[in-house]
């Protein structure tokens, strides 16, 4: 008898503990948002809650890869998520996403520029599942005082002159993008021969590289520690502000254009609130305050019109004219076998 009573008490404590994570919802329900860290101005959330009476439960992730298992397992049922291009494609392939009702998101089609919808078709062929939120390119950041001649090609990263002055991205797909584009291949190639060529190029480049880095490109370039680095365009504006000698260029061989978009998962408990949230984020004023907070390019043309600073509104870094460049591609999810091939080749490069 005593034992049963004890068991009962224990389970009661457990259940009450498990319940204490729930919080009171707003007058019009709630919306659970899963976004990148530092990827939304908190002010935008406050305005949304004030206007709609919907409580926002905001959660953040740090990489696509760490977000995916949590969503797939359904540990928390999110209403709105902001993954990157190739991850959206993977989620679509695994049937995790719900079709959006664009009647509830009028601001999306009205304000977001046509080129971004076109580019999105690479991972969401009918533009039915995602609404672009942030985008950018990958290019070369160089220090004007430390290089000579015009820089407009990936081949400068193979120039002996800049030995020990080159920074490369330390991630498989980013590094192979450079290697593949240099040789004129698609950065989504799964052809063993093309990948082998890219691998050899990258091995050949290795003695010239000062370091393989991720975040440190920013700080190292600002501190004049290197002449040339591969960087994301969103970071380029910030680095330029800190060090006016820096210049960003999109190489003529083409590059990666990435897009992070809002999606709604299939198991979303508050789909309609999620669509309201996405619609709110597509409003020009809201997109503007988010752009100013994040500094990554916004696909929202109406918001761009509102930018007061001429230099930024017309910046070729933040808003390059996409029609001028060729071979701009978006990363695609290549499947497990290709992933393994990439990783094996990358290991060979790193251990060379």
């Amino acid at each position: 008898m005593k034992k049963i009573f004890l068991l009962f008490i224990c389970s009661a404590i457990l259940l009450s503990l498990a319940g204490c994570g729930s919080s009171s919802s707003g007058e019009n329900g709630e919306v659970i948002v899963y976004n990148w860290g530092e990827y939304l101005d908190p002010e935008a959330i406050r305005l949304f809650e004030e206007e709609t009476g919907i409580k926002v439960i905001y959660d953040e992730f740090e990489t696509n890869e760490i977000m995916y298992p949590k969503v797939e397992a359904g540990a928390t049922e999110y209403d709105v998520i902001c993954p990157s291009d190739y991850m959206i494609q993977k989620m679509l392939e695994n049937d995790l996403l719900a079709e959006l009702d664009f009647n509830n998101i009028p601001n999306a089609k009205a304000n977001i520029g046509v080129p971004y919808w076109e580019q999105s078709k690479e991972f969401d062929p009918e533009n039915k599942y995602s609404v672009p939120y942030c985008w950018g390119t990958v290019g070369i950041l160089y220090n004007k005082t430390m290089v000579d001649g015009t820089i407009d090609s990936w081949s400068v990263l193979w120039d002996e002159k800049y030995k020990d002055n080159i920074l490369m991205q330390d991630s498989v797909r980013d590094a192979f993008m450079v290697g593949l584009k240099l040789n004129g291949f698609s950065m989504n190639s799964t052809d063993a021969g093309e990948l082998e060529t890219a691998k050899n190029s990258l091995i050949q480049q290795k003695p010239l590289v000062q370091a393989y880095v991720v975040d440190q490109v920013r700080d190292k370039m600002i501190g004049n520690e290197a002449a040339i680095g591969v960087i994301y365009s969103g970071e380029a504006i910030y680095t330029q502000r800190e060090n006016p000698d820096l210049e960003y260029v999109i190489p003529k061989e083409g590059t990666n254009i990435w897009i992070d978009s809002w999606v709604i998962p299939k198991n979303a408990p508050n789909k309609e609130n999620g669509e309201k949230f996405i619609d709110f984020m597509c409003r020009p004023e809201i997109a503007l305050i988010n752009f100013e907070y994040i500094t990554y390019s916004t696909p929202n043309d109406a918001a761009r019109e509102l930018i007061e600073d001429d230099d930024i509104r017309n910046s070729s870094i933040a808003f390059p004219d996409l029609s001028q460049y060729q071979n701009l591609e978006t990363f695609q999810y290549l499947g497990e076998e290709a992933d393994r091939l990439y990783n094996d080749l990358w290991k060979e490069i790193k251990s060379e």
Partner: protein
Amino acid sequence: MIKTTAKKIYIVLIFIFLYAPIATLMVFSFNKSRTRAKWGGFTFQWYLSLLGNREIMQALWNTLFIALVSSLSAVVIGTVACIAINNMNKRRRAVILGITNIPMLNADIVTGISLMLLFISLGFKFGLGTILLSHITFNIPYVILCVMPRMKQLNPSTYEAALDLGASPVLAFFKVVFPDILPGVLSGFLMAFTMSLDDFIITHFTKGAGVDTLSTKIYTEVKKGIKPEMYALSTIIFVTVLLLLFLVNKAPKEKNERRI
């Protein structure tokens, strides 16, 4: 002479190794510029904006609350478990200790994912509660690890003597056994506390939407670069711990002096 200077140099080197990273972080918490590459001038602005940042402060309270509650719970459960294990015969004790040791050797990511799956299948709502439960779970083995050796050193006759003299088992435990194992319990508590404080992986998999601890909060900032407010917070935590250690080490000495 040479020997003593060599000794001193060695000590200095060790201290540099241990504290240079923390010193760097503290210096940057006063840097006006956001990048580490540039010194923008001396400022307290990050400390001020830290106090105004609701999210970071909430994450700090969550972290402290979880660490405190989970380590206290683990201490109670772990100590009780030790009493039971101590009274088992040799074979059963070895088996049970083996079982309690496995979670410590297990990779955090395995523990994290399996806890997440367990919570899903039990239909728990993810939030502070699930983090707390998982922290208690992974803390218990550490408490047992610290308390068990103390338990083994106990002389069972003292407890029996207390019972013979008319004390109830509970009274006998608190008067006779507990004071002897107290150092083990305390070190178990501290160990559990620190383990809970800096756990990331398990917390990541068992947390619900909108609940963050410091470690998960800092990690989400990786994409856009860690904000200097975090340097300021780390500096404050470091200085607080240093002061506490200083006070703890100083206090008994003063008492002794007074006694003399």
